[in-house]
């Protein structure tokens, strides 16, 4: 089996709605690796990936509800963390 210890990912569409979210993830998760596929961006990390409401709001200049991520999310792997201020996935073994 490939070395898969605690790998998590978020995959988002590659479009105008998702771009600021992807940028926010990049900023708040320096350990993440961004992989581009046709029409889709897959963000891989070990342990945890977080999307912060504040960071996205700064980028788009309006209020943003983390549940809006549902519109652009393509897939994920990991245990979901969700509250009013952030959305994310994590694994801790």
């Amino acid at each position: 089996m490939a070395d898969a210890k605690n790998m998590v990912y978020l995959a988002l569409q590659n479009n105008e709605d998702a771009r600021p979210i992807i940028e926010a993830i990049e900023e708040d998760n320096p350990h993440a690796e961004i992989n581009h596929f046709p029409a889709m961006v897959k963000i891989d990390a070990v342990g945890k990936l977080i999307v912060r409401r504040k960071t996205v709001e700064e980028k788009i200049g309006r209020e943003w509800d983390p549940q809006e991520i549902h519109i652009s999310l393509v897939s994920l792997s990991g245990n979901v963390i969700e509250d009013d201020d952030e959305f994310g996935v994590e694994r801790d073994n």
Partner: protein
Amino acid sequence: MSRKLNLRERYQRMTRDLAWEPSYQSKSDIYPQMEFEGIKIEDWDKWEDPFRLTMDSYWKYQAEKERKLYSIIDAFAQNNGHMNVTDARYVNALKLFLTGVSPLEYAAHRGFAMVGRQFPGAGAQVACQMQSIDELRHVQTQIHTISHYNKYFNGFHDFRHMHDRVWYLSVPKSFFDDAMSAGPFEFITAISFSFEYVLTNLLFMPFMSGAAFNGDMATVTFGFSAQSDESRHMTLGLEVIKFMAEQHPDNIPIIQKWIDKWFWRGYRLLTLVGMMMDYMLPKKVMSWREAWEIYFEQNGGALFEDMARYGLRMPKYWEQTIEGKDHITHQAWGIFYNYTHAAAFHTWMPDNEEMDWLSAKYPDSFDQYYRPRFEHWREQAEAGNRFYNPTLPMLCQTCQIPMGFTEPGDPTTIGFRASDFEGNRYHFCSDGCKDIFDNEPQKFCQAWMPVHQIYQGNCGGATVPDVLDWYHLNFGVDNFDYAQSPDRQHWQQWKGEAAEESDAPDEAA
């Protein structure tokens, strides 16, 4: 003074608080399917809702997704988007999708409505209800999107009728029928966990990236629109497993058996997708082998490390899939090449450039085992002897795929297993499929096997044209090699490409 509720409170009010304790009917009468599978649930309130999405937000976000999707579908139709695909061969992947996958979306819609009704917990009920509505949206948007192709290409005209009859479509159909005729806990383990959580990325991610790469914006859009619901579905699958595992230790062996069964069934089903990736996309995104490494080996590996805390292990025979990733798609394409005279889509042999791509992506198998065979078939076709196999294949009683997969450790010998049950002998492609039968022989001995049905005279007659007529397939139009197809002729006319000498349509077998 009222204060804005936070996410957790909002969810509590809008979901759990809408449920009630029954007072004049017993729970076992209201939820009669809760016991027979042996799963023990002590406290439904321990259900941890994976996404705290309330119905009002659900409608808001789904409406937004639909708006986006339909504006693209409109633009696609107005601009003759079908003319922008890389090559008309690509459209055959869509034919397989519409006839094989879209009806499963409808089956999922029904299945989640059924199990949502059976679960006593409000959290589980709401999650299943949303998924049921999602799945109805998926089938509808797929039909709408692909209907555009139906105006210009053959083979799309009666997908629902075909799904219930055509031999290879019994592979996806029987997969879902198996799940829907199981109990609610097995259904949700099969579909939400084994299929959606562990394997669905292998269906949608490569398919949609492939569509994007091949100029099919409409399909990309319905695909990603459906897939945006998928994160919720996958997370439901994970929660179901955790919940059952935490409720009672007696549940573990039952869950493990279901994971073993449904992983193998899903793996066999996805062979069709792998074949599409490696052979049907004129511009290729990634090989089946690469997709399996990313989405199963890496992602599945991390997942089952997570599951170890409950005493759950990797699905049985996963090692065979690691070896199989070098072989199954080539073997499956070989089967369809043999039987394309009885299929609702066209097949062809890869051109030189595609052969080289396959050699590069499959350095340990393609040149050694498959390239010589394919080059021989191609030479024969060019000499006017395109081979169509006149004998109906033996099918695996479990996965219903023709018995063409090879033995683990020996890619030159066809795998073959058998079991006797109540005086009859049943045949299987693999250990995985045999185990599934042996665990539930009473169920699987009743499978509707297309080849048996043809030989028993239940499929319209004794000749291929009779059977195709019964399938509602147009003989000489929907079937046979791409080289001879009206689809190809039309495409060349539209594109102003001259037909090459050697490709002139010859008499079909």
